[in-house]
């Protein structure tokens, strides 16, 4: 039996299952928490009872972290070159060698209460794309619960752009359908089905000829995005069995966003850039593209959970018995950095957004582990590889920054005089500091890359020179952002999952532009 026909294919959490499956799934939900809290407990116990060995472990771990930074920086650097190269490539010209007229791009734009400026900005960028518009289908996916204003915006945008594309429709996701959370997944699924019925089927467009781009509403694409995407689709072996991941930049409002927001956003971009060079570790994130055929075969995005963007990868991966992967296209798309009316609100929004992302990473772990237990046809080595990549990723994000920046001092605090009098005790903070100072050299590369990815300064920015200085200095915030928005949000999400306190509603990041 294909996994997609099983009752657990679209499971969100343990509560959706019964009997032994429920117990097993619940256990798998607890495992990430056990690992994370177990690590902290072990560090404390080790520092108390065996401070010498705790200190040795910390020094080795610091060295590992330094070399890991070098390793990841090499990937980051290479992707930076690739990103620049792809941005400057004339993809339209490259496509001249291909016959691709049969391909259509279906762009799904789910939105909630975002204003006209945001919605129209995204549609306008599609209209300004160099790709042939008669192969672009746009769906403005609004929510009934967003009220009349959201409908009015959709109608106004439709009126303005209806003749630009092959088609532009408005889909309004009804409120309160059973089995759905309040979130992006149900809306985007509803909009894909509407597009299938109203456009694809009516025009006899084959599903395998449609590439779906599921964009957040603030996604502004470059003028060659669809050409680049089409080229990758045409040149990829078995293109239907792949998702296509661009690099999300958070440039739309970067000149107005506070330093904390910029650093958090750019850190996220950098991580995606690194992952682009490690495609075997890549899972779809945020705005991405994939074949409509694959999407339709699995019943679109899950409607009962938060992280629809990454879960769709696992849905299709398991439905195809592991024959599915993500193709990194290294082409930038631009989105909004977190920006609210006050700095405190911005800070809160960044935290909530990262918590949602981390929750996504956490809730996919038990889903993946459960499926690997149930599916016997995927090779064990392949299962182990994915378990290690995803498990280690979540664990290291939650624990490593805290282990390095905070727990490194534990043996000195808890070790007692027998340890604090040793040469090792005196050397521990010194060596940790030196190794971490070397590791922060990677920040120089980050600052250079970040500066090169910035858009031109808009005229609305009052003091660009001052902001440019702050943009250079802002990287000192990295230890703070990596702990608060990386580790703490990951621990928060993993702990919530551990105790079965599931996130029931998709928190929509407010889009605020100055």
């Amino acid at each position, binding site marked *: 039996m294909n996994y997609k026909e099983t009752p657990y294919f679209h499971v969100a959490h343990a509560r959706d299952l019964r009997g032994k499956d429920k117990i097993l799934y619940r256990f798998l939900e607890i495992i990430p928490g056990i690992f994370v809290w177990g690590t902290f407990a072990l560090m404390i116990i080790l520092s108390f009872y065996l401070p010498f060995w705790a*200190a*040795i472990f910390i*020094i*080795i771990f610091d*060295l*590992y972290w330094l*070399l890991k930074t*070098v*390793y990841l920086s*090499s*990937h980051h650097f*290479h*992707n930076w*070159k*690739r990103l620049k*190269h*792809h941005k400057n490539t004339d993809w339209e010209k490259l496509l001249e060698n291909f016959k691709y007229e049969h391909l259509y791009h279906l762009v799904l734009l789910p939105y909630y209460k975002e204003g006209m400026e945001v919605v129209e900005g995204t549609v306008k960028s599609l209209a300004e794309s160099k790709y042939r518009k008669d192969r672009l289908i746009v769906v403005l996916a609004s929510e009934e619960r967003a009220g009349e204003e959201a409908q009015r915006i959709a109608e106004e945008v439709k009126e303005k752009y209806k003749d630009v594309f092959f088609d532009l429709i408005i889909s309004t996701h009804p409120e309160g359908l059973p089995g759905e959370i309040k979130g992006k997944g149900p809306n985007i699924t509803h909009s894909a089905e509407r597009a299938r019925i109203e456009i694809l089927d009516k025009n006899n467009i084959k599903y395998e000829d449609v590439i779906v781009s599921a964009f957040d509403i603030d996604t502004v694409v470059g003028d060659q995005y669809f050409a680049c995407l089409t080229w990758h689709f045409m040149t990829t072996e078995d293109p239907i069995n792949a998702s296509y991941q661009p690099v999300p930049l958070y440039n739309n409002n970067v000149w107005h966003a506070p330093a904390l927001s910029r650093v958090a956003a750019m850190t996220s971009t950098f991580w995606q850039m690194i992952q*682009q*060079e*490690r*495609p075997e570790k890549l899972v779809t994130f945020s705005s991405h593209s994939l074949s409509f055929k694959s999407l339709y075969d699995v019943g679109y995005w899950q409607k009962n959970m938060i992280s629809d963007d990454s879960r769709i990868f696992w849905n299709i991966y398991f439905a195809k018995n592991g024959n599915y992967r993500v193709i*990194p296209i*290294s082409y930038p798309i631009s989105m909004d950095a977190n920006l609210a009316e006050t700095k405190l609100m911005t800070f809160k929004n960044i935290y909530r957004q990262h918590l949602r992302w981390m929750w996504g990473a956490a809730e996919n772990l038990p889903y993946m582990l459960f499926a690997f237990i149930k599916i016997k046809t995927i090779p064990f080595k392949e299962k182990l590889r994915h378990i290690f990549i995803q498990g280690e990723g979540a664990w290291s994000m939650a624990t490593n920054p805290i282990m390095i920046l905070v727990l490194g001092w534990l043996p000195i605090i808890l070790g*007692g*005089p*027998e340890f604090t*009098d*040793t*040469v*090792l*005790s*005196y*050397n*521990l903070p010194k*060596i940790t500091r030196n190794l971490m100072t070397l590791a922060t050299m990677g920040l120089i590369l980050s600052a250079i890359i970040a500066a090169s990815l910035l858009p031109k300064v808009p005229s609305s920015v009052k003091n660009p020179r001052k902001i440019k200085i702050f943009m250079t200095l802002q990287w000192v915030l990295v230890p703070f952002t990596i702990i608060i928005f990386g580790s703490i949000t990951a621990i928060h999400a993993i702990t919530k999952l551990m105790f079965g306190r599931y996130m029931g509603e998709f928190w929509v990041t407010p889009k605020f532009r100055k």
Partner: protein
Amino acid sequence: MKTIGDLKRKIIFTTLLLVFLFLVPFILMISLGYKKFDDAFSFTKTGGIYIQSKVLDTSVFLNGEYFKNNSFLTRNTLIQKLKPNQYHKIEVFKDGFQSWIKEIYVYPGLVSEGYVLMLPDIIEKTEIFPFFDKEGNGVSSPIVGFTKIAKTKSGRIIPENQKYIDVVTLFEGENPYEVKVPEIIKSTGAGTTTDEKNLPEHYVKLGINDPEDLFNLIESSYEISWLENGNITLNWIGKIENIPFYYCDGFEEKICKEDIILDWGDPILKFDYLPGRNDVWIVLVSSGIYAVEVDPRSQRNIQRIYLGENLDFEISENGRILIKDKGSYFELAL
């Protein structure tokens, strides 16, 4: 343009793995204090000395050679990679300050501590006068026609400087002018009234039946000290694992004793702790008042505070040293 590629990634990964495998033992050896000396065939597990100091911009010398100057940011000095199982001489100098010299034994893999005691060569003193003149300066006698004279019932002139009254009260133990003064807690003397039934365990352990019999008893949560036959006896009564470094010494193996005795030669008449330091005593002997380290390792550093005969001292509530010298009272700027 393609991704970085599997081969390149493998090369980077393998290179870094080799670097890691090479650096781990290297860094661990450094962390543990191993060093290769010219006169030894193998690596030696060295030790270190950690010098704490409250005085800034001092010059630290190790075994007669300049080592470094301390500063605001690096107030304390860590000297590492020292040959173990031998004494190392530490000297700390600063112009205008009395120097600190200590020979500290270094153990393999351990860091021995020292706490610098450096008092100024000349300690400024301010006399506390009972009266004021027209300009507000202190004077020893009331000024006729200016000072408003008040007398006690016994006819003694009451000083107009309240601070003077407080200081006299502190030295006398009671207010000789019969005017209300704030209650002053003396830091010396037996402050504990103890009946036999409630005698704390540490007294029983030390064979003391009545603490009130002990002269100049000073007691804290961790230590008790008193004067006995002109010597200071100090006992550690806290947990043994928290015992301070100055209780511990020994060749090749560090041994901690729970008692320290200071035998001055001449009888010590009175002692207290130097404000802000629990490892330095102020002692009153016939020739003057001195600061002396509790730390008995090698020679004790003794530094003069106030020289003279028939002196007395007290510590005020705000931690100032007060001196009584031939009927005059002084406050020291320490």
